[in-house]
């Protein structure tokens, strides 16, 4: 829908600023600065792509889940991630883009997705660790987005956050079962934690002094906490959880700081982070190729359904005309 508000530009801008200042929500047909709209499209689209691509590393284990119970849980979890992608594409479309177009941009790598999904799932313990750490980190990021200044995004995030809690708990429960199993299972969990800990910390993005875009997003009420604040929260939450599992987090600098009442921790390898997002992660090419294949293989289904709908409509019209 196009904006038809005909007040002068400065009045529109004042109205927008007043709404943000009052901590009220901007809704789709309100006037908004072009940079606000673009920031949201970029953020919501790449969030949606992350949910959709995020199905692949876990989908990898659906057929090999060790029991029917675990298979049903994993299937439900992966279905939820598809749902998250759909809620978010719907929110992005309220800003004047089309999801078909966004999918094209994803498979042409003109829009990206979270670096975390470019790591492979090598063992079944990875399914538990993804639920615990990766969904856990996502929860830290997503909960403040429920109060995002853009109404449709905030509402989508509320639905998503309700479902994420199941994701994290099923992962943690899976790990509890494994650490209470054999030595080999315990080793498998530890090895998996060693691989996923640092990429999970990187999910929060570079340190604050390296993220100049954050300030504008915070002024607009899109982002509510800085990268470092969220990362700290995640570290502090994870330490007692790791203790409950009896696993070690692979960071020699991780230690409680009594003065700060928070944990100190080591610096993630930002060169790796940048390389993985840019396309040289272990699984980038495979993830995009798979998404492209799924999209292209589904084209005939989309076209057939459209042809059927057109035929039905023509038949209805004909019946209406002769009745």
């Amino acid at each position, binding site marked *: 829908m196009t904006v038809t508000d005909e007040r002068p530009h400065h009045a529109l801008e004042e109205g927008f600023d007043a709404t943000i200042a009052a901590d009220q929500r901007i809704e789709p047909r309100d006037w908004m600065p072009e940079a606000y709209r673009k920031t949201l499209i970029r953020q919501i689209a790449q969030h949606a792509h992350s949910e959709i691509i995020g199905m692949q590393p876990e989908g990898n284990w659906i057929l090999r889940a060790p029991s029917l119970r675990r298979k049903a849980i994993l299937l439900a979890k992966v279905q939820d991630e598809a*749902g998250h992608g759909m809620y978010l594409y719907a929110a992005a479309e309220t800003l004047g883009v089309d999801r078909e177009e966004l999918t094209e941009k994803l498979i042409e790598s003109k829009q990206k997705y979270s670096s975390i999904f470019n790591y492979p799932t090598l063992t079944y313990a990875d399914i538990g660790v993804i639920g615990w750490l990766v969904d856990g980190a996502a929860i830290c990021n997503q909960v403040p987005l429920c109060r995002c200044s853009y109404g449709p995004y905030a509402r989508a995030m509320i639905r998503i956050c309700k479902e994420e809690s199941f994701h994290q708990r099923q992962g943690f429960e899976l790990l509890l079962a494994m650490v209470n199993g054999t030595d080999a299972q315990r080793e498998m969990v530890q090895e998996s934690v060693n691989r996923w800990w640092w990429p999970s910390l990187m999910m929060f993005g570079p340190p604050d002094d390296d993220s*100049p875009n954050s300030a504008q997003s915070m002024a607009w009420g899109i982002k509510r906490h800085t990268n470092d604040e*969220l990362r700290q929260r995640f570290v502090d939450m994870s330490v007692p959880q790791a203790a409950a599992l009896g696993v070690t987090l692979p960071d020699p600098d991780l230690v409680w700081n009594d003065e700060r009442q928070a944990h100190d921790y080591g610096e993630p390898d930002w060169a790796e982070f940048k390389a993985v997002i840019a396309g040289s992660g272990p699984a980038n090419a495979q993830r995009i190729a798979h998404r492209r294949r799924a999209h292209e293989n589904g084209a005939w289904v989309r076209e057939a*359904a459209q042809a059927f709908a057109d035929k039905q409509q023509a038949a209805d019209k004909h019946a209406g005309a002769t009745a």
Partner: protein
Amino acid sequence: MSEDFTAEGGHGAVPTEGVETGQGKPARRTWPLYEVFVRGKRGLNHVHVGSLHAADDEMALHNARDVYTRRNEGVSIWVVKADHITASSPAEKDPFFAPAGDKVYRHPTFYAIPEEVPHL
């Protein structure tokens, strides 16, 4: 090194520079957009929950069930083509709703009644 990345997007940091945002004009014809309304339980109104694309009405209903009610969030769903919705425009906001603005006598608090009068 990293001035063009931030943790925007709840699932982790993504680039913020050099990312195309799109024009709203897909290359191919796409399925129409439907808005979805769900009645959470008996006794409640249908509430707008989001949108989806489907080739026809029936597919829209099925997709709405799968996307928006995976955990018994609804006992009834309405889907309506977005094109069929007529909305008041933001430009009309003030004059459109103005007739209600100066009719304070429509509210019970407008009327002063002595405190000792019961049940009013």
